[in-house]
């Protein structure tokens, strides 16, 4: 292996590491937001329904149920956040889930349209970032 080869490979691994950090930061941020929304929905469902102009939740129970499922989803996402390259499944499912949720929130309407916009933006960002990460990882291998 020449010095130039070593330099090239080393530089690619550094890029992969940078992409990994960027992806994990992005995913970490969305998981923190998701956890915060989930906790508020569980603890203060009526307040959240009013503050976020949620579409006529018939009872606090449904908002709480939504909140707890957001929390569970965030938990199940964690392995993907810890090892994004080796544990790919949660990341792929998570990105798909964000697109699906965005559509569902648009359908629900009212204040949830802001949630839809948020999910859509971060679904695209995560998809792009994850693709970059995987490409960098693959290219870093000899």
């Amino acid at each position: 292996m020449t010095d130039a080869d070593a330099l090239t490979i080393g530089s690619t691994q550094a890029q992969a590491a940078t992409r990994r950090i960027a992806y994990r930061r992005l995913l970490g941020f969305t998981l923190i937001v998701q956890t915060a929304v989930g906790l508020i929905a569980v603890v203060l469902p009526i307040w959240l329904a009013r503050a976020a102009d949620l579409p006529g939740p018939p009872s606090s129970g449904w908002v709480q149920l939504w909140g707890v499922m957001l929390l569970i989803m965030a938990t199940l996402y964690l392995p993907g956040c810890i090892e994004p390259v080796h544990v790919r499944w949660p990341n792929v499912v998570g990105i798909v889930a964000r697109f699906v949720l965005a559509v569902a929130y648009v359908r629900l309407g009212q204040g949830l349209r802001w949630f839809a916009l948020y999910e859509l933006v971060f679904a695209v960002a995560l998809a792009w970032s994850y693709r970059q990460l995987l490409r960098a990882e693959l290219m870093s291998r000899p």
Partner: protein
Amino acid sequence: MSTATTTAHSTEDVALRWFRRLMWAGIIGNVIVGIVSIAYTPQVLALAKVDPATPLVWPRLSAMLVMLLAGFYIPAAIDPNAHRFAAVFAVVCRFAGTIFMAVVGGHYIIFGLFDFVFGAPQAICLYLAWQRTNAAPDGRASGSTIVALLAGLLAVGAFAWGAFQWLTQPVLPAFASDEEFFKYGSIGNDGAGGIPYPIWIAMPDVCAHHLPRPQGYAAFGLLYERGRNPAIDPPIGFSRAKVGVERMAINCAVCHTVRARLAADAEPQFYVGAAANTVDIQGYLRFLSRCAADDRFTPDQLIPAMAAKVKLSWLDRLTYRFVLIPFVRRRLLEQGEDLAWASRRPAWGPGRIDPFNPVKFGMLHLADDETIGNSDMQAVWNLNAREQIRASAPLHWDGLNNSVREVVISSALGDGAVAREFNFPAMERIDRFLRALPPPLSPHRPDAAAVERGKMVFAANCAECHAPDGKRTLTVIPVAEVGTDINRSHMWTELARDAYNNFREGRDWGFKSFRKIPGYVAEPLGGLWLNGPYLHNGSVPTLRDLLEPPAQRPAAFVRGLDVVDARNGGFVAPSCDPRQQPAEGFCFDTRLVGNDNDGHVYGTALSAAEKGDLLAYLLTF
């Protein structure tokens, strides 16, 4: 490889294999439940008995999330060894869902049970598999099988408990109007005191010979509004709620709504909050226990009568035959025995009740002290106005409590509500409703000049105790002074007061306002035209009679009629002979203990003209 190691590895394989199978089962379960919930949302909500949802997209969103969550479980289902985090998190999340739903409670427990069904066996399998992996080199499992068995038993017990909670959670009908809620809403006694609806509607048919008249429950003066079918619909004062099965239970309105006709041929009107002049609670309770004791109270007699009115599946029939009918029979017989003491006292009759002795001897576990608490039912309107007249105005005939909140809660307890199903929001709603409920205006239009003169007579003779600004209005007047029957006052003892203030059954109810003041409350006159018969024991039929000296008041009269007496005040109440009960109503005998019509002689010495004027004025309330 030793035999022990081989066994350990094969056990590991079995446990892991079952874990994967259970993971896949959970994933498929999530997807199926999600798809079915999205396609048949209202039906699934009804089946799960959870809150109705409008718009339906909320439960559909939840269903979609359930499916999305299933996607996260797939790595653990494919290879739990390679995806240990995913496997552990999958199980943890199932338990998180279970715990959360158990905390939220209500019918949402069903979602927790769903997670538990998969989470518990998955956890056990995962534990076994990893125990074997980490076992000692000789392959011994360090008792992990026993632990797993115990965990399995615990899981089955927890599931059974959750299922029981879910099945016995009340499904309460919603009422947009406070008045409808007051008339037909649940106060939290459905599970403990409710009778399964099919049995309840069949009892008047099976036990018709125990009814005073062939009118179903209307024979006890229970009130059916226009358009309601007495054969199958609940009367006013009964809630129909589902606690396992649909049940009928009384609420506040049974004693606090009256039916009145302005003339014998007039359409009946219903006045919420008024004393239920026609309702014979004791007769109703006796009917229930007598019917339960009857040879006809059997599945063979009841089930055909039930099936004639409601649709019963084969499972319903089996449940009623072998579980519910025997159980209800036993409970009604016990209830009859609990109220046997009342047979040794004068009958309550329609519009009357002994409200506190059942509480003393039942709820508070005090010994039968031979007291008689028979009282007229009371109107419960204008509670805010009462407090404007006098802060902490006394409530009940003898003012035994002065907190509306405590009276509402204790009344629900007296009606059979229990801590585990107590409905505090319902109590608050009733509290708010009654505080703002005005008494209906008098329909009587006496001579205006007489009314004006009567006003003066009232001011001179009655206002001190009955005018809103009277200095003794809404105070407790000593029995020695007012002179009315003493039994109701004697019934409420210091012992009972202390026992109720210290009542902690099921929870700390926070009672502190029960008290003992020997006397009766001087009530304001709002709604006076609907309050007859008069005095705390309902022993004087009309206002005109009340202005006569006790010796000249009717010794026996018919109670329970609903025609308003526009001339005398109160309800039409002809004289009767207690030895022969009338075809309609109940012959009330003032010579029986507790029924004395003595006392309250204010105004009895007025001239006939003054009495006429005073009566004219009183008829305007």
